[in-house]
């Protein structure tokens, strides 16, 4: 691997390094570089939105427009996919979108760390989302929520098989949600790093891969947004099941 010829492996950017060792009741809760970037995400997101909404004008400025656009964007996603009942969970869904988008975008910054390129993070988020939605559905519909697993109008002899398949399908939700985001972020950033390594290794001739890196970076920005969008819209779609278990 050409990039490996450089001192750094393209996977080094994913290393977790402990900045402050912490321990809570035998559980390792060290403050890592990942945690540092999470704090940066929270700080930057909050700062941006507080500044953007500080002067609430009827005719919005540029920052306020972006803030309102993101609000309307997520609200539209939630309303279209989960219905009116879903709007109650807007703050949660909005936070998911902003957190993932910010993590993906900050990952584009050189020498930064991409929080969402780690399975631990994406799996935790998707598990919490799916578990939360399942609990919500059970609370709302009780036993009726299990209609999710049995499409109506199925012949009796086929029902057991279909129920097993539907249960597996339901269980794939957190897996696909987590793996999609993590794999996309990891693949994108690894590729960028590999080609950036080419640029350095080739010196003057590195102009060609440099152009490629620029194009790739543009593509990665698009994918960073797209993955945040997909993560959010799937959350909305799954949330819909909690309200309407009968497909």
């Amino acid at each position, binding site marked *: 691997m050409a990039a490996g010829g450089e001192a750094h492996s393209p996977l080094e950017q994913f290393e977790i390094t402990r900045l402050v060792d912490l321990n809570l009741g035998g559980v390792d809760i060290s403050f890592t570089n990942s945690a540092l970037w999470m704090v940066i995400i929270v700080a930057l997101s909050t700062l941006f939105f507080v500044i953007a909404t500080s002067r609430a004008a009827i005719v919005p400025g540029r920052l306020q427009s972006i803030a309102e656009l993101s609000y309307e964007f997520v609200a539209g996603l939630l309303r279209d996919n989960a219905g009116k009942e879903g709007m109650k969970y807007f703050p949660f869904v909005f936070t998911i979108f902003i957190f993932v988008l910010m993590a993906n975008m900050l990952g584009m910054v050189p020498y930064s760390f991409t929080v969402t390129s*780690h399975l631990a993070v994406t799996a935790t988020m998707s598990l919490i989302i799916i578990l939360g939605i399942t609990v919500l559905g059970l609370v709302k519909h009780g036993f009726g929520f299990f209609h999710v697993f049995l499409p109506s109008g199925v012949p009796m002899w086929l029902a057991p098989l279909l129920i097993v398949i539907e249960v597996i399908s339901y269980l794939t939700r957190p897996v696909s949600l987590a793996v999609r985001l993590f794999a996309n972020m990891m693949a994108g950033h690894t590729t960028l790093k590999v080609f950036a390594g080419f640029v350095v290794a080739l010196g003057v001739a590195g102009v060609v891969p440099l152009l490629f890196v620029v194009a790739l970076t543009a593509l990665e920005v698009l994918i960073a947004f797209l993955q945040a969008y997909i993560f959010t819209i799937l959350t909305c779609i799954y949330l819909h099941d909690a309200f309407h278990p009968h497909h």
Partner: protein
Amino acid sequence: MRQIFLGLALATAAVSPALAEGAEKKGLPQLRFEDFPPQIFWLVISFVVLLVLLSTLVLPKLQGTIEGRKAKLEGDLATAVSLKDEAAAAIAAYEKALAAARQRANAIAAEAKAQIEAAAAARKAELEAKLAEEAKAAEVRINATKAAALAEVRSIALEAARAIATKVAGIEVDDASAASAVDAALGRNG
């Protein structure tokens, strides 16, 4: 294409232990499970903090602004609609007034015309009556003159007939026979 990149990444991960530059860590950093607890812990903390910060500091304000704008737009729209209605009402009132004025003008003109026509008719009738009266009087006069002339003609003829008879025939004709002869002659010719 992305699958290829992912494959590349995984391949690198598989090879990296072999190339390991004195690294004590092996394999994909993402699959080192001893690194999971701190990430999960700080993820939950930071996510909850962001959720609380956004939903207290930002979202109510943003919602207020957006809904305020919507309300203002709707209010402006309603004002515009009511203004339009008012304008339409004003136009209708104006047109009504205009129609009324026109009608009144027409009525006045018609009345004046009727008055003038009535006056003219009266004068005409008066004139005609006067003319008819005069014509009648003239006729009476003509008839009287005619009768007088006729009577005169008879007496002259009578005189002439007696004189002619005396002179030519030497006979004295009495008045009665002369008159009947004249009348007979007049009746034949006249």
